[in-house]
């Protein structure tokens, strides 16, 4: 096992898949000459050239719509949204076209499309540039939504996404590119649509993903020092949602906290809690708590922004609350 950063993991996945399949190419803003705004595609332009690493104009509709078209005729484009917030400028393509076309035309063609998008707050970028709108995208049948929380998962899931014949939104977190983690040597993939237990424990189940995983693992460590052992289930894929490990864990602990960075209302947590109540009501020993972002547009000021975002302390407090 090698220890690498999230950035390296994603970069490796892209490179390996581009080497493996000539139909794979990248298009997006500043992916080429600049090397990617988060330096994920650094060196790609020199290695693969302008045909496979396409610097686009600032034109999100042309990027996502164009990638859809290229996918429909048999290529395997990876479209990059510099940030997921700019995806709103191409919302029609992401939620109203890509998820529908295969179904609506009776499966006549496939859409092997990956949209990589950088999301998340915490960098003082202000209200329009800091969102974690994952739940909105996960609302649409026909679109798959993946959002990894470790380098190992990021690499394996992105490789699967590129090989998949469905449109997939792959959400990365802007503050996690330096996160380090063990990654298997050599070729591997991780199936899309499988949740994973990232830490075992007997007292409380934390259900989370992406940035929430980073925070929850820290919270778990702190709680462990106090003798509370939490089990952390990482969703990894929001749609299709794999509830098996969540339910299994919950049936063991009977208590849960759901952690997400996005807003609480109508969020990922709302879905998870409903599903637990629907599918494991008899096992509920305490009301389930959702830890999420305060219901405000994110402010620029650092202290205010941090106050709005979920913190490790919020998670530890929630765990103690469900244990009462």
């Amino acid at each position, binding site marked *: 096992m090698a220890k690498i950063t999230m950035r390296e993991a994603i970069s490796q996945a892209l490179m390996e898949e581009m080497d493996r399949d000539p139909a794979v190419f990248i298009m997006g*803003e*500043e992916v080429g*000459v*600049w*090397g990617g*705004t988060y330096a994920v595609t650094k060196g790609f332009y020199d290695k693969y050239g302008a045909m496979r690493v396409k*610097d*686009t*104009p*600032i*034109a*999100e*509709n042309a990027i996502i719509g164009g990638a859809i078209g290229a996918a429909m005729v048999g290529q395997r484009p990876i479209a990059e949204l510099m940030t997921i*917030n*700019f995806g709103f*400028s191409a919302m029609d393509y992401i939620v109203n076209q890509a998820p529908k076309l295969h179904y609506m035309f009776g499966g006549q063609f496939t859409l092997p499309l990956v949209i990589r998008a950088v999301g998340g707050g915490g*960098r*003082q*970028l*202000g*209200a*329009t*540039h800091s969102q974690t709108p994952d739940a909105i995208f996960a609302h649409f049948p026909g679109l798959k939504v993946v959002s990894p929380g470790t380098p190992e998962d990021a690499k394996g899931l992105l490789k699967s996404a590129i090989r998949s014949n469905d449109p997939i939104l792959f959400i990365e977190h802007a503050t996690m590119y330096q996160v380090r983690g063990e990654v298997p040597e050599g070729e591997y993939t991780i199936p899309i649509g499988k949740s994973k237990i990232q830490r075992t424990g007997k007292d409380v189940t934390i259900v989370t993903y992406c940035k929430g995983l980073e925070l929850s693992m820290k919270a778990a460590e702190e709680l462990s020092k106090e003798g509370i052992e939490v089990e952390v289930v990482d969703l990894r894929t929001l749609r299709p949602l794999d509830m098996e490990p969540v339910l299994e864990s919950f049936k063991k602990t009977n208590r849960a906290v759901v952690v997400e960075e996005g807003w609480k209302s109508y969020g990922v947590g709302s879905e998870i809690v409903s599903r637990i109540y629907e599918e494991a009501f008899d096992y509920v020993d305490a009301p389930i708590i959702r830890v999420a972002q*305060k*219901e*405000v*547009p994110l*402010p*620029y*000021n*650092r*202290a*205010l922004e941090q*106050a*709005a975002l979920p913190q490790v302390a919020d998670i530890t407090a929630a765990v103690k609350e469900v244990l009462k």
Partner: protein
Amino acid sequence: MKKEQYLNLYYQMVLIRRLEERGAELYQVGKIGGFMHLYIGQEAVSTGLIAAREPRDRVITAYRDHGVALNCGISANEVMAELLGKATGMSKGKGGSMHMADTSRNMWGGHAIVGGHLPIASGFAIGDQYAGNDNITICMFGDGATNIGYFHEALNISKIWNLRVLWVCENNQYGMGTAVDRASAVTEIRQKAEGYGMKNGQVDGMDVTKVYEAAMEAMKFVRESSQPYLLEIDTYRFRGHSMGDPERYRKAEEVKKWQENDPIGIFNRYLLEKKLATRKALDEIEARVEEEVAKAVEFAEASPEPAMEELFTDIYAD
């Protein structure tokens, strides 16, 4: 223009430059966060442009907005305070560098979604047309913004509805790291107005007097004819796209060449040659600006952080 007006323009340009230089230092030591896009090199554009507006004319721009804010009469104190995220900033520290606005001065914001503010600018003009006044909306945006659909939708509607919008493209040759010829089908941005049957022009953005004259003429046209106009202003940013830009996409010689056309240097020489100012008068302006910026930093640093309750204010009006 009267002599004092010339000196005032010089003062504004130097103020933008010095305030941003201090801003860059404060960013480096972590007192300013987020994205910060400097206007250094482009000062003549907004300075000449906004000098030509009537106070009732509205200004709206993108995230590269510190200069525009100062030109619109927002104080250095307030700009610096907003940069530091303090309660005394125009947006109470909630907006930051990219979101400077003071609607009482008809500065309707820095906007950070590329091209997103163009249809809103059309909307200002729709509102003013509806109200029956002859206000102009001055909408500034980059070369890169002319490749996104927002631009085309906004230009088209402004033409068919006879809206008083002065579209101002600040062509600084790059959208982030992408040179205009790699992103735009035509490199002369003003040509895009032709497709909408819209009157247009182009001017050297390193010369504030030329910008001012072109802006005066364009605004006269917009006000009198009730028609939109697209003005392309050619310029160059001397610094990176935003703080921390590795600038791999352009050569140092290219930057140096443009820096020889420093808009402040050009105007300084012009003022002296035309005997519109003495060296002493210009030095005094420089000194005054230094002091003003130093005071602004002091003010901003001494200002309180926004109260925690501010997190939940202004979400809704009702």
